[in-house]
Each structure stands twice: as C-alpha cells, then as structure tokens.
C-alpha cells in the first residue's frame, strides 16, 4: 500500500517476477536477472541488478523487488507538495537521486570517488576514448561538483549539481502508476 502502485500493475509485475523466478522459490537471485538479455547488453546492467539486492544478500523477494521498482514511479503532482508526511515516499526526487547515486557508489561510503566514477564512465563509453581522456573527464566531473575539496562527490554535492535536471521525469517509468 505504501508504494501506491495500482493493483493491476502489481499483479502484472508479480507475473513478471514469477516468470523471472526460474527456481520457483519466491525469490530472485542475480542469475535470474542476468537472464534478461536486454539487461546483458545494457552498459549498466550489472549495477542495476545489484541495486535490487540489499547489502550482502543474494535473494530478493517480491516485496524487495517492488520496493526498488517503486523508486521509478512518476511523481504525481499532488504528491510533490506533501513531501514529508510519513517519511518520504520512495519515488521522491531525493530518493530517485539516491538510487542513481548508489549506482556509482559501490562501497556504500556515501561518496563517489574518482575510481568509482571512472568505472562507471568506462562502462558507458565505447572503445574510442583512451584511459587518459576518460581520466580527465572524471577529474573535470569531480571538479565541477566538489565543493568541499575532498576530491569525491558526496550525496549532497551530487544533488546540488543536478538541481537543474528534471530528475523526476528522467527517472520515471510511466506505466508504474
């Protein structure tokens, strides 16, 4: 209920969950996700999959599945106002940003280090960029965002640098409502 997704959508997603769950044990493991070929050729496929699994766990049940997906629910207009009623809803801007942040931040130290950034960058570009060039791009990225000089991007810096970007719209999937 907390997720505010309509019943039909939940049913549909449950069918999908079920069809992915080859082991029929009510939970998805990483392989189940990796069987989706489009994810295999998505540059960030592994990271996205990783985002479903809470720290240290290897199985995700339907509740967890939906929890993660709920981040991508479009932000309804009437919700934008009641931001902090019972804790922020999962699909708030902050939480969406946090999701994106965690795609970079593997070691969960709440900072995107240069190496983490480089890794993600390398995943997203083709072969024509040399490591040096990529390094400069990473340096520049950190420089633009870093306000406290620690050569890392913290979550607040991340939020600040993306304040002009319409995150609510970019990180939403229309049918999840």
């Amino acid at each position, binding site marked *: 209920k907390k997720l505010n997704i309509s019943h039909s959508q939940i049913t549909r997603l449950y069918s999908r969950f079920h069809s992915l769950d*080859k082991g029929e044990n009510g939970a998805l493991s990483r*392989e189940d996700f990796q069987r989706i070929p489009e994810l295999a*050729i998505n540059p960030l*496929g592994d990271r996205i999959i990783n985002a479903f699994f809470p720290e240290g766990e290897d199985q995700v049940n339907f509740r967890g599945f939906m929890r993660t997906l709920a981040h*991508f629910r479009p932000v309804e207009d009437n919700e934008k106002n009641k931001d902090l009623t019972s804790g922020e809803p999962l699909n708030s801007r902050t939480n969406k940003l946090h999701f994106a942040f965690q795609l970079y931040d593997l070691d969960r130290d709440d900072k995107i280090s240069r190496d983490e950034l480089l890794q993600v960058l390398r*995943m997203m570009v083709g072969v024509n960029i040399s490591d040096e060039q990529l390094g400069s791009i990473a340096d520049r990225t950190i420089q633009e965002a870093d306000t406290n000089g620690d050569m890392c991007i913290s979550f607040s810096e991340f939020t600040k640098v993306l304040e002009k970007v319409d995150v609510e719209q970019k990180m939403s999937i229309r049918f999840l409502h």
Partner: protein
Amino acid sequence: GYLHFTKKKKKTFLRTRGSETISKAGTDQSGVALVINRPPSNHTPDTDPDPDPGETTQAVFTLNYPRIQIPFEITLWVLLASFAKIGFHVYHKITVWVPESCLLISIGLIVGGIMHSLHEKPPAVLTSNAFFLYMLPPIVLDSGYFMPTRPFFENFGTVLWFAVVGTLWNSIGIGISLFAICQIEVFGVQDITLQENFLFASIISAVEPVAVLTVFEDISVHEQLYIVVFGECLFNDAVTVVLYNLFNHVAALEVVEAGDVFLDIGRFFVVGLGGTIFGALFGFVTAFTTRFTGKVREIEPLIIFLYSYLAYLIAELFAISSIMAIVICALTMKYYVEENVSQRSCTTIRHVIKMVGSVSETLIFFFLGVVTITTEHEWNWGYILFALLFALLWRGLGILVLTQIINPFRTIPFNFKDQFGLAYGGLRGAVSFALAFTLPDNIGRKDLFITGTIVVIIFTVFIQGITIRPLLKLMNVRKTNRNQETINDEIHKRLMEHTVAGIEDLCGQWSHYYWKDKFMKFNNRILRKILIRDNHPESSIVALYKKLELQNAMEVLDQMSGDISAAPSLISLHEERKNASKSRKKFLSSDVTNMHELLSKNMYKIRHRTVSYTNKHTLPDDITAREILMRRHTSLRRSLRAGSFHGTNAAKMSQKYFSLPMGRSLNSRFPPRRLVHADGDIESEINYSSIRHPQRVSSKAVMPLRPLNTLKEVASSVNTVDGQNEEQRGCRRSHLGSNVSRSGHLTSHLPHGSSRNCSDGDHDAWVEEPQNNSDVQHPLMRRPHWLPQKPHDK
C-alpha cells in the same frame, strides 16, 4: 545502349566487309560472325560446301549477342546501380547529408540524360508484372524480416491507425481537393473524373521510410516514433495497393453505385485480413519445414525464400493483399526459423534478403531517374503544383488530427516535435512510382499522372529528404541548451537514461501484456513443440541470449584489437586504487568542449536494439552490444583472479585477449560459484547434469584456470592454488560469483547449441556435451592463431 552499340558495329562491319548477310543460320540479323578468311561467296561460313584448301571456313571467334542479351542487360543495369552505391560511400559525408535515394535518382537522371541524347529508349522492364512480381516482393520481405517484433506489437494499434486511416485520409482528402481544382476551368483538366482523381491521390499518398529512418537514427529519436514510421510505411504500402486496385476498378466503371462502394469497403477488409491469415499460415509451414532440415543445411535459406515468395504469389492469385501476406509470413517465421537453422544459414538468409531488397530498391530509384528524362511528359502547372501542395498539406493535417485522436490511448503520447517528424518525414518513393508507371492505358491522363507522381517524389525525396536532418537537429538543439550543460549533467543524465531503460526491460514493458502472456503460453506449450526441432523447455529470452553469445564468441576471436577490457563492472575496489592524489587540474574551456564532444560521440546510446534494426540499407550491427558483452566477459575472468590482484595495479592493465573461449570451458572454469554460494541447488530448468556437480574440491575445479596464469598479467606470480582460493573469496567479495555462475549457466548452452551446429562441420573446437572438468584443456591454448600478448599498463 548496348543494343545500339552492336547495331552500329554490325553496320560498320557490314560496310567494311561488304557482304550482305553474315548472319548465322538460325539467328536474326544482329548476329555477328568474325571470320578469319573471308569466304568468297555469300554463304554462311559454316555451311560453305567448298572447303578451299588453305582457307578456314570455320569461325574462330564469334560474337552472339542476342542470345545473352536479356540477362546481360539486366546484369549491367544492376552492376551500374551497385557501382553507384559503392561510389556514394567513398565519400562518407555525402551519405550523411543526402539520403541515398536522392543520390540514386540523380545517377538515374544522369544516365537517363545520356540515353536520351543517344535517342535510346530505356529498357522496358518496368512493366506491371515485372514490378509487382519481381521487384516489389524483395523490398517488402526485407522490411518485414527486419522489423523488430516487440516494439512493433507494442505499438500495433498506433501503427495500424496511422497506416490505414492515415492513408485513407490522405487519399480521399487529396482526391477531393484535386477534383475541386479540376472544376476550375483555368487549368484545363476538367476531363479527369472523380475516380481518376482518387486513383492519383492514392498513388501519391504512399510514403517511404528509407531516408527518414536513417535520419531518425542519427538524431536518436525515441523508438516509439521510429517504429510508428516504420510500421506505417510498411502497412501503407499494402493499403495503397489495395486502394489503387480498388480505384482502378472503380475508375473503369461508368457509374458508381452505393452498393459498389460498400462492397469495396468490405473487400478492403477481406483483402487485409486475408493477407494476414495467409501470411501467418505460410509462416508456420515454413517453420515446420525447417524443423526437418537438420541434415540439409544448404537449402535452408532457399526454403525461406521460396515459401515467402510463394506466400506472395498465392496471395496475388487470390487477389488478396500480397504485401501483408509476405510481411506477416516473414514476421511469424523469423522467430521459429532462427532457432531451427544453423548459424550460417541464419546469416545467409539475412544477407540475401538485405541484398536482394537493396538491389530492388536501388533499381527502382534508378529507373525513376532514367524514366524522368526519357518519357514523354505532360505538364500542367496548375494540376501538378496543386497536387504537390495538397499532398503536403493533407499529410500534415492528417498527422495532426490523427495524433490528437490517438494520443490518449498511448502510454507515451506524441509531442509536437514527433508530429513534425512524422509529417515532414513522409517521403514518397518506389511504390508510388511503380504504381504510377503501371497505370492502365485507358486512363486518359496517364502521362499527366506519371509526371505528377514523379514531381511529387522528386520534390519530397530531394527537398524534404535533405532538409529533414538539419531541421530535426535544430528542433532538438533548441530544447537542450548545450553550452550551459556541465559534464556532470551529461554523464549523470546518460546514467539515468540507461537505468530507466534497464528497469523498463526488466519489467518487460508490454502494454497488451495479457494477450502476450496468453500467446506465449500457447506458444510454449504447443507451437514450439511442433515447430522447433530441439525444443528445450527454456525461455525464449535465454535462447536469444544464447544466440547473441554465440555470435559474439565467433566474432570476438576474429577480432583481436581494441582496448575493450579496460574496466570491470563490479570488481572490488581494491584493484582500482591508483595514486589518487592528483592536484586540481586546470581545465580550459576548450578542454571542456572537447570533453563534451568526446562524450556525446562515444557514450553508448540507449535502446540500440531497435535502432540498429531499422537501417534500411545495412544489416543490423550490434557493435555496442558486442563491446559490452566482451567487457563483461573479461571482467568475469579477471574477477576470478581477483584475489591475486590485491595491491597491484594489475586491473588497469588491458588484456589483449578476450575471455570468451569456445565451448564448455566457461562452464568448467566457473564452478567456483558452487563453492562460494553454497546455497543449495540451482534448479535450472535446463538439465545439464554436468552443472549439477556438488561442492567440488577447489583445486580440481580451478585447475583449468592454471594455464591462464601463464598467459597473462604480471601480477599472477602469486601461487596459483592460493591465488585461486583467494579468488573464490575474492569472488564472494566482489559479488561476481553470480555473474560467473550466470555465464557458466548460460554458456553451457553453448555446447549444446553448438552440438546442433556440429553437423556443419564448422567449428571443430566445439565439443559435443558439457562434461567433467578435470581433463579440460584450455581452449585458448588450442587455437593456433591466437597470440598471447603481454599485457601492458596504460
């Protein structure tokens, strides 16, 4: 022109030789025989009854043109068109700015000009039969076969809506307006009846996707728009042809009654649905046939083509929509056929379809150019210009109105930019031309119609074709203000886009999910059993992935270049630590612009899967997918030695070899997964008993890894056994176990899949069945041409 040539030659020959008849017995006058010693009489040399001593009467060198004339000329035309195509791509920039159809028409114009000045007639190949029976089917088969099915079915309603209703709207609108124009006496075209106007209107409302799609691809419009344009063009071919026949038939009638009209409308549906059903039927029969072609791989492509063509012809026989038939046939059979046939046959089929379709299209545009110059034109300023105007106007209006109506039903509505793209992208092309050219002669103003059609085609192809790209770019650019974007924006935005695309794929977004679900159940339970040869109870997703991996594997080993393996995806961070203490660099604005450019050119675009399929003139090309997959595999392999990487900067080393070995090696190499995640069996639906080995002794399991160490990085001076034990722990730490198992899981399909292909005798490196690990030889060692390279730091 060649006929001309030979005639001339003959004439000169005649003049110089002075003999009256030199024709061989049995041939007509244009045969030429070159005789070494001239016979004294007028008899043909062969039948000369008096063999003079010292004179050979046998023709030593003969030239018999008429025998080969027709195939020869056809070959030459096709070759000429092909040279034109080659020529275009020599200078790459041209094809970026000018669509290929423009170039082809230009070449045709030039050739036409030459022919005209020589007073030659163009080859009379563009008869109705030749076009509809020989030239159109390949084009349509090409479109149908390479149509991406999933997005197509997702947008099926919209596609049909635009194709059917849109074309009707256009035809009727243009027809009526032109009829109104005809009533105005000034233009002097009052003799054109309403039916004939409708006929003409239906001809010029058929749109062609070719140029537009290439432009869309470059601009990366979102795939919804893409698929709508693609599907619309495909279906409106069918609709146009039906309308054309309809109006043709009606135009011949003197009096049109209401009953006739209703009959015709009913007929329209019969034709459309009939075509679909026919196509589906043939598709299934093809799939069924390919089930049995396991031993005769060579004829597999032939079967595909024959059945498709047969579907077309039989549909023509019953006068139902043959285009629909062949398209639906291709769509249906593709899914099953690509599972049944061998990899080579699959490639052959795709190549041949592309080739023949491409040639056919090229020829048609070419002839368009030639015919433009060489035919008799009837020019009527008013009629033609108004026709052009109305064509553009009604299309624009049509798109606007139709979009408004259908937007509420769509999950992702079309905005104005999309609508502009749709409307402006309505170029006319091959089908219009052919239809005009093959109008029956009893239409009084046939020449006028032909001229009008040619004008519309040339205008849209040249002017709209060339300007659509800058226009779309302009509209795009105005939305995003590039100069103020920070690098952060760009990178994070792209990250978000990829994420959303990934999540969407994960959710299996499908708007008519219920029906798809039902169909898939039906499919799995019944259809697959009947139509597919080795039917495993595996999901089609896995099969698709398997196929991708298979292709990838073959290509990877052919291509030993590039620095693709530069970074792993989820490897633990220890390896990535470099000397991070860099002082703040100063970035010049030129640097920043460079970075922007670098990023925009090189970042992977999202949703490549659709885009790469719809490039009309080339085969689908999944370079990006390949790169990504290769990276994953190298990262997988590297992660296995993650333990040995501690504290070194080995990870930064690029490995010059790629980690997807053939056959079962991955399977055998990655059992560590079992050790690490000892959480019970994986109930896989695939019964590979070899996978189900219980917790195996580590050394044995990882023995195949040992040879790797000799081949690669410096860092692996670590004790192998220890290293590998550490790796397993490293595996756990780096979350890669599951990756590993996944590929172990899936690539174990490889041998099974390959065992099917073994009958080709293709890959002698493939092994029959996955089996025990202990005696596996490192496959990379086996391949003779693979060179281990020294890894190097970058």
